[in-house]
């Protein structure tokens, strides 16, 4: 495992052990990561639902007369009521699960959007880099992007990136009224200039080439500390984010982790972008971020 990911695991271990409710369908890779996290003292897992009753020899199982949906509802209720400190859902990730999450989220936190942050280590400089939103919001408008940025900044700060540099990506650096993402990026950039995102710097629109190279950006007359030092890539839409993450994973051989952002308490999942062996990393990420939105 890469050193920056090892640090994240180490931090998960240093925290106070959390009581985690487990829901979803039985998944062997998830289970082995749960047991590893338990053995390392990160979590105290309790499973919920009939489909998980066969885990009895490994951990407590409650609600054995319920199906996956009912057990998920119960697990979310326990989380909302403070009886558990985190939830881990073994999957499958489907629209029904997300409807449940969004409903429970709405009850909890009034208008805070859920988004997903993928995490990888940039091969050329070993930098911990965040990509968002790679999973949830299909065609975010400006309003949604403001939440997606805030969520990602929150994740970055929990990952000890104190003053994140954010590149709002687009196909070019000029604002083109025919390309809405360039308008959104320009407005977000102005919001950042006016300190509406706290202690962070957002620059955009930026093509990925200029986001990756300070020199290339200078050639284009972009005077900003973000190019060449990006911590968070904000994508125009789900397609661009998800497709890019796929190529990084497979063609770039990058290990991806991921974390659900915008929840009140940790809800740990694994997106199809991550390999099954990323479950343990996702547990660690889930445990050290998502605190105190």
């Amino acid at each position: 495992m890469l050193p920056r990911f090892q640090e994240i695991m180490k931090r998960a271990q240093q925290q106070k052990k959390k009581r985690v409710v487990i829901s979803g369908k039985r998944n062997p890779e998830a289970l082995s990561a749960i047991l590893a996290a338990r053995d390392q003292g990160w979590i105290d897992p309790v499973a919920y639902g009939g489909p998980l009753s066969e885990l009895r020899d490994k951990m407590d199982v409650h609600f054995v007369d319920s199906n996956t949906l009912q057990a998920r509802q119960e697990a979310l209720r326990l989380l909302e009521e403070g009886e558990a400190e985190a939830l881990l859902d073994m999957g499958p990730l489907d629209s029904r699960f997300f409807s449940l999450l969004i409903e429970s989220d709405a009850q909890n936190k009034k208008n805070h959007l859920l988004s997903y942050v993928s995490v990888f280590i940039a091969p050329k400089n070993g930098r911990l880099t965040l990509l968002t939103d790679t999973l949830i919001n299909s065609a975010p408008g400006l309003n949604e992007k403001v939440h997606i940025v805030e969520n990602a900044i929150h994740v970055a700060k929990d990952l000890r990136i104190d003053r994140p540099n954010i590149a709002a990506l687009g196909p070019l650096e000029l604002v083109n009224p025919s390309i809405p993402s360039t308008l959104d990026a320009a407005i977000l950039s102005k919001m950042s200039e006016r300190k509406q995102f706290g202690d962070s710097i957002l620059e955009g629109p930026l093509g990925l080439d200029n986001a990756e190279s300070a020199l290339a950006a200078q050639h284009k007359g972009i005077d900003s500390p973000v190019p060449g030092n990006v911590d968070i890539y904000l994508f125009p839409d789900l397609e661009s984010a998800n497709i890019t993450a796929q190529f990084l994973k497979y063609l770039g051989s990058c290990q991806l982790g991921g974390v659900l952002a915008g929840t009140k308490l940790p809800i740990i999942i694994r997106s199809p972008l991550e390999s099954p062996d990323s479950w343990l990393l996702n547990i660690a990420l889930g445990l050290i971020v998502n605190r105190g939105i």
Partner: protein
Amino acid sequence: MAMYKNFDEIAVRARDMGPKRAAILFPGDADVMQATSEGIREGLINPVFIGKKAQIEAVAQEIHLPFGAMEIIDQSDPQVAANLCLDMVMSGEVSFVVKGNILTTYLYRALIRATRQLAPDQTPCTLCFHQVPIINKIFVITDPGVSILPDLTTKKQILANAIQVLRSLDCDTPRIMALAAVHLDGKPSIVVDHAERLKNMADKVRFGKCTMEIGTTLFDFFDGNHVQAETFPDIFLVPNIEAGNILVKTIDHLIGGIRQCVTVGAGLITLTPSRSDGYKARMENLALGLVLAESSRRS
């Protein structure tokens, strides 16, 4: 036949075909002129310069290029110059156009105009050819350059265009993947809908011999970190300019790939090299343009 394995193979083929006449649009810049001079030396091109004559001569002098024998067409209006370049490709006076120090928009506009004249049912598109370390084959991503948010008809034209170009490179039965994301919100996705309709057309042989699939994951092509080049797609169709543009640059900067871009409409080839390209990249770009121009003429 399968797709070329790498740009070196294309360069070898180009040296057998060259040199060919190429129109250099607005070369009034030392980098562009240097690249042209190297292209001459490598036996790839015989250039015709179109732009501001005085400026071209000044730059030629600056880099010690003898401009007495150079063919220069004096034209200071960028759009008129771009249109003239495409007219020269259409008439067969030159094989292809190389963009110099000029906004790409002028060249795209000229190409769209020329494509409409020659083939009104076609749309030009940018094809990015990628060579990456872990795959022993070049693959193409389209369209990261011309169409912002293509509708189904435009995607169909983009795909037909890309397939035609790959066939001219002897890739007889291109494998195509229409890229799309999984949508967890359960809402219908226009991207997936387009991909399904295009696949349906491909299955009914509307694009000639090819195979097509809808791709939400590249998982199936990989066995651990090992990729199966024979089943890996030759063409990736992206849903919009944003996804395409970010993806091709990600492959350059985060995946360590080499990219060469051409923009094609009605068989007319235009090259848009990058200012930051080094010597090898510039020669590979000219070689690709030459092979495509000659192959599409032949087919």
